[in-house]
C-alpha cells in the first residue's frame, strides 16, 4: 500500500547479529582491551575475517543460523582443537543479562570502529574501516540498536536468551529433567529476573555440553542418529505435566531434527527464527530463480513452496516471494497457481521491483509499471501453449509501454513477440494476426507472417541496441541469425522478379549475426549486479565448509587436527551469469544447426559437442536434449543404426522427464530410416503415421514436423514402388511448402520428385526437378543437398542411355569431394555405385584392363551399406560386383558376391523373419 508500508531495506538487530558483532570484536579488538585475542597464525586471523564476511553476505538460506549451527561452522573453520572462539562467544552471549548490558555492549562495539584519526595507531592493530563491508555491517548494527525502543531492547534480550538456550538444549536434552525445576518458571517469559537463573544454568551446563557435543557431533550428521535422539526427547516429555512446558520447547526446537525440514517448523512459536538481511534474502530469491529456470521440473514443487510460504509469513511485505511462487508453479505446469501468483505479485509490486527495473528519474513515474505484468503474462501464456492469448496480451503490452514510453519494456516485448511468432507454427498465426494485430497494421502494408516477423526483429534489435540492453541485443542477433537461416530476404518494398535477389542465407551472414551475439560475453561485466556475484561467492564458500566434513571428522579421530582443505575454494563459482551462458550456448546450438543445413557434418558435430560439454550446466534441459538429438542423428548417418540406438538409450535415460517429445521424435525418425533401409515397409508406414500425429498436437501445428512427416510418407510410398501416389504426395507437399515459404524444404521435395521420376523410369521428367532443386540449393548455400542433387542428376543422365555416361561421370566426380567429405554412409554408397555404373555402362571402358576402378568403389559401398543394413542397395552392389567378377573370370569371388546378393534379396523379401530387438521399442 502506497502510504502504509514502510520503505524496505531496514535492518533489524537479532541475536545472530550480536554473535557476529562479538566475533568482529575478536577479529578487530579495540584499543581499550588490554589483551588482544591470541591468534595462532595470521592465516587464522584472515580466515576469521573471511568467515565473517561470508556470514554477512551468503544467501543460501532465508533464516539466520542458530547458535549451535554457528558454533559448528566455527568449529569447522578453526578446527575442533581451537575452542576458544566458541568459549568466548558463549560466555559473552550469556553475560548479556539485562538491558544495560546490551547498552554497554554496543557502546563497546563502537570502539572497534576506526575513526578518521585512527591511522596514527601502531600497525599490528587491526582496524575496522568504517567504510568496509564489515565496518558497514557493524555500523548498521549499532544504528539499529540505537533506534530500538525499550520494548525492542527487551525483545532482543529475550531472543538472545532463547538463542542461547536452544543451542544448549540441543545437546542438553538428556538432562532437561534435571533442571526442569529451576526452569519451570520460565513459562512467564518476559520476566527478566529469570534471566540470571537461566544464565546460571547455562554456565553450569556449558562444560558438560561441550564434552557431549564433541561426542555427539559425529553422529548428528547421519540420518539414523537424530531419530534416536528425537525419540529420547519424546520419551521425556510424554507425561503431560503442565510444569514441563520448558522441556516441550526443547523437543520442538531441537535443531538435530528440524533444520532441513521446514514443514515441521510451521506452527512453532517463531521466537527463535529470524530472517537474514533484506539484501541476503533478495540474493537467495535471485539464486533460487536462476536454479528454477535452469533445472525446471526437477525442482521439488512442494519443498520450495513450503520455504516460500514461511518466508511470506515472516515478511509479508516482501512481494518477490509471490514471483518465485509464480516461477515455481510455472515450472511445474500448474496453470492456475501460476496465473494467480503472477497477478498477485504485480498487484502488490506494481512492477517496480522487477528484473530490469530502472529507478524512475525524479519520481516522474509514480503510477507503477504494469506493462511489465503484461509482458510476463504473455510469456506465461506462451509457455503454457496459449499462443492466441499470448499474442493478445503482448499486443496490449506493446500499446501500454508505448503510451508510458517505457522503451525497455517495449524492446523486451517485441523480442517476446518475435520469439512467439517464430516458435508457433506459421499456419497458426495467420488467423490471429489478421484481426487484431495493431502495431503492424499501422505500417499500412499487408505483410506475410515472416515479413512481419522480420520487421519486428529489426525494430526490436534497433531498440535494444539504442537502449544498450546487452542480453537482449545478443538474443536478438540470435533470432536474426535463425531467421536468416531459413528465410529468403528480399527487399521489402520492391517485390517482383526484377528486384535484385540479395539473399542473406549465406553462411557468412549467419555467422556474422552469431558472432555479434557472442560479443556479449566480454561485455556482460558492466551489467551483472554485484549482488549476484558477491552473494554467490559467499554462499559457495560456506557450502564448501560442509563438503569436506567427512574428512574433518576423520582427521579429528586421527588426532591430526589439520583440515586445511576445508578452506580451499574448491569450486570457484563461475563469474558468468547463467543467462549469459545460456545465450552463448544457444548460439553454439544454432551454429550446429546452420552447419547441418549447409551440409558440413563435422562442423555441425563439433558445435553440438561443444554445447553438450560446456553449456549443459547452464542450459535448459530441452536445449541440452536438442544437442544430444543432433549428435545422435550424426551417429546414425555416419556410424549406422546400432550405435545410434545405443546412444539413444542413454539420452532417453538422461532426459527421462523433460522434453520427452524431442527424443521421441528422434526415435521415430531413426526407426523410420532403418525400416526403409531394411525394407520393413509396413513398419515404416506405421512410424510415419505416428510422426504425423505428433505434428499436430494440442498446442498447434508444428509445420516443420508436418512437412517432415509427409516427406517421409512420400519416401515410404516410393520404396513400395507406388510411384504415382508418391508423386502426388510430394506434389501437394511442394505446394504447401511453397505457400508457407519453407524454402529449404522446397529443395528437398524437388529432389524427392526427381527421385520418384527416376525410379519410375521416367528420367526425362525427372531432369527438370533435379535442376530446379539444384538451383534452390545453390541460392540457399545448401552444399550437401546440392551434392546429392547433383548425384541424382547424374543418375538420371545415366538412365537415359550409355551415351550420357561420360557426362554423368563428370557430374559425379565434381560432387565427390563434397560427398566424401561431409556425406553420410548412404550418400557415399550411392555415389560409389553410380560411379561404378558409369564406368560399366561406358562402352569404351574395359573391365579387364581397369578392374580396380570399378571394384574399389563397389567394395567400399558394400561395406557401408552393410553397416546401414540397406538391403536393396547392398543387393545391387553385390550384383554389380558379381558381374564384374564374372567378366574377370574370378569365379570364387563371383560366387561369394552372388551369395551375398542372395542373402540381401532374401532379407528384403522376408523383412520380418529376423527377430528384431528394436522392433518393440515403440
Amino acid at each position, binding site marked *: *500500500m*502506497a*502510504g*502504509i*508500508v*514502510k520503505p*524496505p*531495506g*531496514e*535492518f*533489524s538487530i537479532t541475536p545472530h547479529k550480536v554473535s557476529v558483532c562479538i566475533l568482529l570484536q575478536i577479529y578487530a579488538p579495540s584499543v581499550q582491551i588490554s589483551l588482544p585475542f591470541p591468534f595462532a597464525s595470521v592465516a587464522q586471523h584472515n580466515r576469521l575475517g573471511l568467515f565473517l564476511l561470508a556470514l554477512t553476505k551468503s544467501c543460501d538460506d532465508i533464516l539466520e543460523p542458530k547458535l549451535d549451527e554457528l558454533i559448528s561452522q566455527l568449529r569447522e573453520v578453526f578446527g575442533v582443537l581451537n575452542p576458544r572462539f566458541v568459549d568466548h562467544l558463549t560466555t559473552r552471549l550469556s553475560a548479556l543479562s539485562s538491558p544495560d548490558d546490551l547498552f554497554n555492549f554496543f557502546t563497546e562495539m563502537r570502539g572497534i570502529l576506526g575513526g578518521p584519526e585512527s591511522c596514527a595507531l601502531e600497525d599490528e592493530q587491526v582496524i575496522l574501516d568504517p567504510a568496509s563491508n564489515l565496518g558497514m555491517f557493524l555500523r548498521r548494527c549499532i544504528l539499529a540498536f540505537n533506534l530500538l*525502543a525499550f*520494548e*525492542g531492547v527487551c*525483545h532482543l534480550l529475550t531472543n538472545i536468551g532463547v538463542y542461547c538456550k536452544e543451542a544448549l538444549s540441543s545437546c542438553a536434552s538428556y538432562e532437561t529433567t534435571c533442571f526442569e525445576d529451576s526452569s519451570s518458571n520460565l*513459562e*512467564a*517469559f*518476559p520476566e527478566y529476573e529469570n534471566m540470571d537463573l537461566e544464565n546460571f544454568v547455562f554456565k553450569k551446563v556449558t562444560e558438560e555440553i561441550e564434552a557431549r557435543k564433541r561426542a555427539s557431533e559425529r553422529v548428528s550428521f547421519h540420518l539414523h542418529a537424530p531419530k534416536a535422539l528425537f525419540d529420547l526427547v519424546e520419551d521425556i516429555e510424554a507425561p*503431560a505435566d*503442565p510444569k514441563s*512446558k520448558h522441556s*516441550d*520447547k526443547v523437543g*520442538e526446537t531441537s535443531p538435530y531434527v528440524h533444520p532441513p525440514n521446514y514443514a515441521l517448523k*510451521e*506452527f512453532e*512459536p*517463531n*521466537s527463535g527464527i529470524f*530472517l537474514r538481511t*533484506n539484501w541476503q534474502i533478495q540474493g537467495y530469491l535471485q539464486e533460487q530463480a536462476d536454479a528454477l529456470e535452469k533445472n525446471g521440473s526437477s525442482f521439488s514443487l512442494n519443498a520450495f513452496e513450503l520455504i516460500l510460504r514461511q518466508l511470506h*509469513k*515472516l*515478511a*509479508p*511485505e*516482501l512481494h518477490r516471494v509471490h514471483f518465485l511462487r509464480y516461477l515455481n508453479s510455472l515450472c511445474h505446469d500448474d496453470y492456475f497457481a501460476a*496465473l494467480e501468483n503472477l*497477478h*498477485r505479485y504485480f*498487484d*502488490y509490486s*506494481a512492477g517496480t521491483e522487477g528484473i530490469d527495473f530502472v529507478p524512475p528519474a525524479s519520481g516522474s513515474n*509514480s*503510477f*507503477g509499471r*504494469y*506493462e511489465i*505484468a*503484461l509482458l510476463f*503474462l504473455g510469456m506465461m501464456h506462451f509457455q503454457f501453449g496459449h499462443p492466441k492469448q499470448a499474442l*493478445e*496480451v503482448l499486443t*496490449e503490452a506493446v*500499446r*501500454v509501454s508505448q*503510451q508510458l514510453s517505457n522503451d525497455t519494456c517495449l524492446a523486451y516485448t517485441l523480442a517476446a513477440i518475435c520469439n512467439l511468432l517464430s516458435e508457433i507454427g506459421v499456419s497458426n498465426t495467420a488467423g490471429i494476426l489478421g484481426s*487484431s494485430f*495493431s502495431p503492424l497494421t499501422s505500417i499500412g502494408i499487408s505483410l506475410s507472417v515472416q515479413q512481419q516477423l522480420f520487421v519486428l526483429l529489426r525494430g526490436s534489435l534497433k531498440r535494444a541496441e539504442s537502449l544498450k540492453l546487452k542480453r537482449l541485443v545478443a538474443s536478438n542477433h540470435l533470432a536474426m541469425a535463425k531467421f536468416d537461416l531459413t528465410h529468403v530476404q528480399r527487399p521489402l518494398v520492391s517485390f517482383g522478379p526484377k528486384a535484385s535477389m540479395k539473399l542473406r542465407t549465406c553462411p557468412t551472414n549467419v555467422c556474422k549475426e552469431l558472432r555479434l551475439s557472442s560479443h556479449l560475453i566480454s561485455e556482460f561485466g558492466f551489467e551483472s549486479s554485484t549482488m549476484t556475484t558477491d552473494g554467490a561467492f559467499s554462499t559457495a564458500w560456506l557450502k564448501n565448509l560442509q563438503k569436506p566434513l567427512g574428512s574433518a571428522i576423520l582427521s579429528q579421530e586421527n588426532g591430526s587436527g589439520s583440515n586445511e582443505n576445508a578452506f580451499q575454494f574448491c569450486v570457484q563459482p563461475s563469474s558468468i551469469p547463467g543467462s549469459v551462458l545460456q545465450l552463448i550456448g544457444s548460439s553454439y546450438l544454432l551454429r550446429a544447426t546452420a552447419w547441418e543445413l549447409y551440409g558440413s557434418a563435422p562442423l555441425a558435430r563439433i558445435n553440438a559437442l561443444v554445447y553438450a560439454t560446456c553449456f549443459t550446466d547452464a542450459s535448459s534441459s530441452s536445449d541440452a536434449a536438442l544437442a544430444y538429438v543432433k549428435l545422435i542423428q550424426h551417429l546414425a548417418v555416419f556410424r549406422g543404426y546400432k550405435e545410434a540406438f545405443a546412444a539413444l538409450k542413454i539420452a532417453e535415460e538422461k532426459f527421462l522427464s523433460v522434453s520427452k517429445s524431442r527424443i521421441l521424435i528422434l526415435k521415430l525418425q531413426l526407426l523410420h530410416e532403418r525400416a526403409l533401409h531394411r525394407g520393413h515397409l509396413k513398419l515404416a508406414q506405421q512410424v510415419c503415421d505416428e510422426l504425423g500425429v505428433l505434428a499436430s498436437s494440442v498446442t498447434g501445428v508444428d509445420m516443420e514436423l508436418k512437412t517432415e512427416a509427409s516427406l517421409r510418407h512420400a519416401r515410404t510410398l516410393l520404396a513400395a514402388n507406388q510411384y504415382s501416389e508418391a508423386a502426388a504426395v510430394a506434389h501437394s507437399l511442394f505446394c504447401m511448402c511453397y505457400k508457407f515459404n519453407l524454402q529449404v524444404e522446397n529443395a528437398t521435395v524437388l529432389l524427392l520428385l526427381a527421385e520418384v521420376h527416376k525410379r519410375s523410369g521416367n528420367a526425362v521428367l525427372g531432369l527438370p526437378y533435379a535442376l530446379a532443386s539444384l538451383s534452390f540449393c545453390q541460392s540457399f548455400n545448401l552444399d550437401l543437398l546440392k551434392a546429392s542433387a547433383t548425384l541424382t542428376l547424374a543418375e538420371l543422365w545415366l538412365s537415359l542411355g550409355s551415351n550420357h555416361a561420360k557426362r554423368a561421370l563428370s557430374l559425379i566426380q565434381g560432387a565427390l569431394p563434397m560427398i566424401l567429405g561431409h556425406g553420410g554412409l548412404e550418400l557415399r554408397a550411392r555415389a560409389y555405385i553410380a560411379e561404378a555404373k558409369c564406368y560399366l555402362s561406358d562402352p569404351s571402358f574395359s573391365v579387364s584392363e581397369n578392374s580396380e576402378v570399378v571394384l574399389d568403389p563397389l567394395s567400399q559401398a558394400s561395406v557401408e551399406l552393410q553397416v546401414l543394413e540397406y538391403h536393396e542397395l547392398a543387393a545391387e552392389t553385390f550384383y554389380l560386383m558379381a558381374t564384374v567378377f564374372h567378366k574377370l573370370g574370378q569365379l570364387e569371388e563371383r560366387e561369394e558376391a552372388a551369395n551375398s546378393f542372395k542373402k540381401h534379396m532374401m532379407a528384403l523379401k522376408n523383412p520380418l523373419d529376423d527377430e528384431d530387438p528394436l522392433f518393440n521399442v515403440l
Partner: protein
Amino acid sequence: MNSKESCRSELRIAIRQLSDRCLYTASKWAAEQLTGIEQDPANFTPSNTRFQWGSSSIRRRFRTNEITSTPIAGVSYVSTPVMEEDDAVDGDFYLLAKSYFDCREYRRAAHVLRDQTGKKSVFLRCYALYLAGEKRKEEEVIELEGPLGKSDSVNRELVSLERELSTLRKNGSIGPFGLYLYGLVLKEKGSENVARTVLVESVNSYPWNWNAWSELQSLCTTIDTLNSLNLNNHWMKDFFLASAYQEIRMHSESLAKYEYLQGTFGYSNYIQAQIAKAQYSLREFQQVETIFEELLRNDPYRVEDMDMYSNVLYANECSSALSYLAHRVFMTDKYRPESCCIIGNYYSLKGQHEKSVMYFRRALKLNKNYLSAWTLMGHEYIEMKNTPAAVDAYRRAIDINPCDYRAWYGLGQAYEMMGMPFYALHYFRKSVFLQPNDSRLWISMAHCYETDQLRMLEEAIKCYRRAANCNDREAIALHQLAKLQYELGRPEEAAFYYKKDLERMEAEEREGPNMVEALLYLATYYKTQKRFEEAEVYCTRLLDFTGPEKETAKSLLRGMRTTQSGFSSMNVEHFSP
C-alpha cells in the same frame, strides 16, 4: 417450534453460566436473544413494554415475508438438559480470580487459580491464560514489526494450553466450555479438522455458547464441510446455520432461516441486523434502510453493523442521513473501525476523497483485517486516480477474503483505467464467478471486451446477455446488445433487442434518448423489411419527440406513403385520413 417459555428459561440459566465463566460476548448475545423472545400477551407486565416494538411499522410491512417462509416441518428438537453446576457455591479463590479477570488482569487471575481443580476453575484459568497470550500477541505484533512488514506473532500459551486441554479431554473431565477453548486453541494452531470435531462436541453438549458456534462457523467455508457436521437438533443450530449460510453466500437460504427464527425471537435486534445483511447482499436496499431505521430507534447506541447501513445510505446518496449517522456513532464510540468507516463513507459521498482515505486508514489501523475498509479505500483511490494504491488496497482485501467480489471488480476497473483491458478481464472473470447474478459486473466485463483495443464483440454480446438475464436495473444491457448486433450486421437480432428494450422502457415509464434511438431504428428496420404498418406505428410515436428525429420520422412516413401508393394504387383510399 418449541415453546417460547422453555427457550426463555434455558437462556436465562445460560446467561448466568456464561457470564460466570467470563464468556461475555456469548452471554451478551444470549441476553439479546432472551429479550428478543416475543412475550405472551397474557403475562406481560407494563414494565416490559418498552422493550416491545411489535406495533412498529416494519413488522407490519414485512409480515408477509414471515408467512411465506415455510416452517420446517417435522423437526423435533433435542432437549439438551441444562448443565448442572459442579459446585453450587463458588470458592473464594474463584471469586477473586473472576474479579481480577473482570479488571482484565488475566495473568493474575490465572495465578490465583493455579491449584484449583474444579472444572469451572480450570476453565477460567485456561481461558485467562489464553487471553493473556492473545493480549501479549497483539502487543508484540506492533513491537516486532520488521522491515518487511508485520511479523506473525504467535500466542505463546497455545502449546501448553493444548497439551493440558488434550489430557483433560482424554480424562473426560473437560466439559463443554473446556472443549470450546480447546477448539479455539486448535484452530489457532492450524489443525482445523480436529478443531471442528472438538467444537461440534462442545456445542452438542452445551448449545447456548454462541462463541463456540461462531468459531465453528468460521471453520466451515464450504457447503460440504457444513453438511458433514454432525449436529444435534437444537434451536441454536438454526441460528448457526443461518449465519453459516450467509457466510458461504447462500443468501436466500439464510434469509429463510432467519425469518423462521423470527417466529420465536420476534424482537431480536440481532436477527433484524442479520436479515438486513442478507437483504443487503441481495441488493434490496430499500428494505435494508427500513430495518436499520427501526433498529436505531430501538437501540440508538448500536455501532455493530452500522457500516452496512452507511453503505446503503451512500448508495442512495442520502448525505444528510449519513452525516447524522456518522455523528451518532462518533459520539458513541469514536475508536471503532465501523465508526471510522462510516465517516469515510460520508466524506466519500461529499467528494472529499483525501479525508475519506484518512478515515479508512484509521479503521484499518484499528483492525487491519477489516475487509470492507480495504475495498472502500480502493474505491477512493480510484476516484483520486491513484491506481497503484487502489490496486494494492484491493489486493489486500482479496488476500483477506478471496471471495470478495467487490475487490476483484475494483481491480478490474483499475486495470481498465490504465488501458490494460485484456489484463483486466482476468479480474472481471473472477468477480462474475463469485457473484454471477450481478448485472453490473457483467456489464463492466462486456464493456471491457468492447473497448477499442480489444473489440471482442462476440464475447461482449455474451456478457450483455448474461447481464440482461439477471435483472439489469440500469437497463444498459439490452440497449448495448441491440447496438452491437446492429454493428455486427445482424438487423433482425438488433430489432429484437430494441423491441425488448422498448417494452422495458414502456413498462418502467422511462423516456429518453435510448427510446428515440430504439424507435428510429425499429421504424427504419420495418420499412426496409417492407412491413409498413409496424414502421408507421413507430414513426408516429417518434413524432411525439422533439429534435431532428421528428423530421426524420416525418420524411420516413412520407417516403413510405409514396412507395406504397406506387405499389398498390388500389389501396390508396386506405391511407386517406
